[in-house]
């Protein structure tokens, strides 16, 4: 439906993944740090503990400079990268939830103006007034979280929305509640790393350094256990059947789970260490914890995204941005049905008919001027490009490692599907995988796609080309 941006050097989805992981890290810090700061500030006021303000001011500056604005920037970054990578997916969310996002915007405005007010009024307003600002920051941040989780979880479980067509049904869906509470819990773990970073920068024995480190570690440990408990007893059981089937499948790249487990264990050890020996805490440990958490969050967020596969909006829109479900209450008809009959080429605005394509030999068609391969390229981009590298454009090589995303060339080579006929037979059957949709289009279009993939494979791995194979057999 829209022009397709494959990405450059790396796949478009990876731009999104990195931006998202960073946003989650920064935004989760803001919410739970606001609660932790509130806790300390309440004690500062009630117990007349002046020394807590030293920590609070330094934390607030860090939050103002790093977490709030970088969180906001990365949030907008998600908009931009999602829009470029999968515009119809974000369009569905916007057209369902624009006013919820508008509501989140108010909370966000409260957060950003709030942290500016909070930081720039230290010592300039009464303690009670400043404490009120702390309350506003904690509540505003939690409001932001509450709203965005409804929109995010809709992608995995639109639930009753299919029947009612009402935004409320989609928003308060079946995974909304467990995800909300799980994220809230894990936020304290992330925030503990933040508090360790701030408090760890104080000289040893400085004011309440050790006390704050121990409290932060305790908050973090409680958040960690609560988050894991919610995942095991509430969130995971509420996942749809398809998502549960995907969880152990190869759709989730191999290093993902080890990365998450390592992150959890390392965080646990780090927090216990901070709790037991706060005097040993150094800023470098906290920075390390942040890096580990970034890795774990990256893995967890990628998993959350993959759980919906092969859809961008589960049960409604496939990753290639075609609608495949009728929703009578909203007057929506499946596009896949129609396009399976009419064919893809020439029937969507940016999927041109063969007569509109130039059949010139170029790197994009691996040196071929065959019109069938040119048509196959268009289909590969539209049907597969959202989740796979379908050209060399998104496969930058760093230190000998090719940074592609589930490259079709790799997959075909792994399955020993080296000829167009084998690939075509495979494409006929891909709908059988839990994480794949059937090919949409005519038989001729599917054959064209197979021809393109054959050329892609042979160009990427010349040893798979028939002449090369024949030569090897002769040897």
């Amino acid at each position, binding site marked *: 439906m829209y022009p397709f941006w494959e990405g450059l050097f790396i796949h478009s989805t990876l731009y999104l993944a990195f931006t998202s992981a960073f946003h989650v890290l920064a935004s989760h810090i803001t919410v739970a740090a606001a609660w932790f700061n509130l806790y300390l500030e309440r004690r500062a006021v009630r117990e007349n503990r002046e020394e807590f303000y030293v920590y609070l001011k330094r934390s607030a500056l860090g939050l103002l400079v790093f977490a709030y604005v970088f969180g906001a920037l990365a949030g907008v970054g998600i908009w931009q990268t999602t829009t470029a990578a999968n515009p119809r997916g974000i369009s569905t969310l916007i057209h369902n939830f624009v006013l919820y996002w508008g*509501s989140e*915007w108010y909370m966000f405005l409260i957060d950003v103006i709030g942290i500016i007010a909070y930081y720039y009024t230290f010592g300039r307003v009464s303690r009670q007034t400043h404490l009120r600002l702390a309350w506003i920051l904690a509540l505003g941040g939690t409001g932001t979280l509450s709203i965005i989780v409804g929109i995010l979880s809709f992608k995995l479980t639109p639930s009753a929305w299919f029947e009612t067509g009402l935004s409320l049904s989609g928003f308060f869906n079946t995974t909304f509640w467990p995800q909300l509470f799980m994220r809230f819990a894990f936020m304290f773990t992330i925030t503990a790393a933040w508090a360790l970073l701030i408090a760890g920068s104080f000289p040893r024995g400085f004011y309440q350094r050790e006390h704050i480190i121990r409290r932060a570690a305790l908050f973090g440990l409680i958040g960690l256990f609560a988050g894991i408990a919610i995942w095991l007893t509430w969130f995971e059981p509420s996942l749809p059947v398809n998502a549960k089937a995907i969880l152990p499948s190869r759709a989730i790249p191999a290093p993902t789970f080890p990365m998450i487990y390592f992150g959890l264990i390392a965080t646990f050890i780090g927090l216990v260490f901070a709790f037991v020996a706060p005097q040993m805490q150094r800023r470098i440990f906290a920075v390390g914890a942040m890096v580990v958490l970034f890795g774990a969050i990256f893995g967890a967020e990628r998993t959350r995204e993959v759980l919906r596969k092969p859809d961008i909006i589960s049960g409604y829109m496939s990753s290639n941005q075609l609608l495949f479900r009728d929703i009578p209450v909203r007057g929506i008809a499946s596009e896949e049905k129609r396009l399976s009959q009419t064919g893809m080429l020439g029937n969507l605005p*940016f999927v041109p008919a063969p007569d509109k394509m130039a059949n010139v030999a170029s790197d994009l068609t691996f040196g071929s001027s065959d019109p069938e391969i040119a048509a196959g390229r268009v289909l590969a981009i539209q049907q597969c490009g959202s989740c796979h590298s379908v050209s060399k454009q998104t496969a930058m090589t760093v230190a000998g490692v090719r940074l592609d995303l589930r490259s079709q060339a790799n997959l075909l080579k792994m399955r020993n599907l080296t000829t167009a006929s084998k690939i075509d037979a495979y494409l006929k059957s891909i709908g059988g995988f839990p994480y794949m949709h059937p090919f949409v289009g005519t038989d001729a279009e599917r054959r064209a796609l197979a021809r393109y993939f054959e050329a892609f494979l042979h160009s990427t791995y010349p040893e798979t080309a028939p002449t090369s194979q024949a030569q090897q057999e002769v040897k």
Partner: protein
Amino acid sequence: MTVGEMLKMMRDPLGAPFFPPALQVLLVVTWVLHIFFVTTALGSSALSIFAFTFRRTSESWLQLGRIAARLSPNSVGLGIVTGIAPLLFVQTIYDPLWYAANTLSGFWSAMFIFIMMGGYSLAYVFYLKGSKDGRLVFTAALSFVLLFFAGWVMHVLHSVSIRPDQWLRWYMPDGVIDTRGVTFHAYNIPRLVFLLPLQAALSLSAVVMFAAWYMRKRSDDHAFLEWTAGLGRKLGLVVSPIYGVAGLAWALTEGPEFGVTALIAVPVLGLSAALTGYFLALKRPIDKAPLSLAVWLAALLGVAVIREAIRVASMARFGYSVADYPYRMDWGSILVFGGTTIVGVMVVLYLVLVLYQANASKEGTISPRVERLGKIATGMLGAWFGFFFLVGIYTVLFLR
């Protein structure tokens, strides 16, 4: 398939959840705040660089440069936050335009935020580490370049979005699909000059006067404040006529393409003349600073309307109109948004008043009325969660 048919097909089948022309009004109004902060960020960044590079011997300039260095990153933050609202509304009623532009320029769309992060970080580095004694001016300069480049990217995205008749040609140059998204397909330099550097200067003019007015009660250096306000007025006076010239160039270069030459030329020349007249007549800039700020915001509203009129004219060529955009009143959305708006406005108002009063005088006294507002606003924010969860529970139990 005609361009008009293509645009209709590209619209999201779900339609808008609210009356689309109302969303169009919100789009225009929220853009005013956004562009104000964006141009303030650029203007204050330029001012701090100028002060610390060319006026190092003048204490007044350095003092103003420090204020500008502090203003710049905070304005970037507010520019980003206020940019989210128009971003929401443009996607709702102009989805074909926005999404096509972002995919055609995908690489720059994705890079935008990294460019912004670089610009913002460097602005903060200069504010925290350099603005005291004027070291690290290169960080401020680099920050300005990055922030301006981010503005250029947004300008290109908008320019691409209002030219749907060119999209296919850009996507398939010579019949071969280009999925790299690296080309700057469309731009209009006079428009860019009008919207960014010149408006940055005018935003700076208004903000500088306002800052002088605001600091009156807590600063004893009245000479500096008078000088600052006078500088703001002078800047406004010099830039306003140039603003008109750039606007005319914009009208003459972009106008004919959409048949809106007069529609751009007349109001921008009018705005330029009105602003020039205002600055000429402004005798005590420090006393009239709030009025000057209001005048400038009103001028920005005028520009926002002109911008929207160009988009409407461009789309009308293909039969695309916001008035025809399908919609279905979604009462759940309206309920949540309405409730949050009441709470949000109260809390934001309270925060702004606290910021204002805390720094307006030497003592930083918060008035009892504002304190009372704070109690109510905080209570309302707490109550919002009750409202939110009740709506959730009602949905789970009854909307099935």
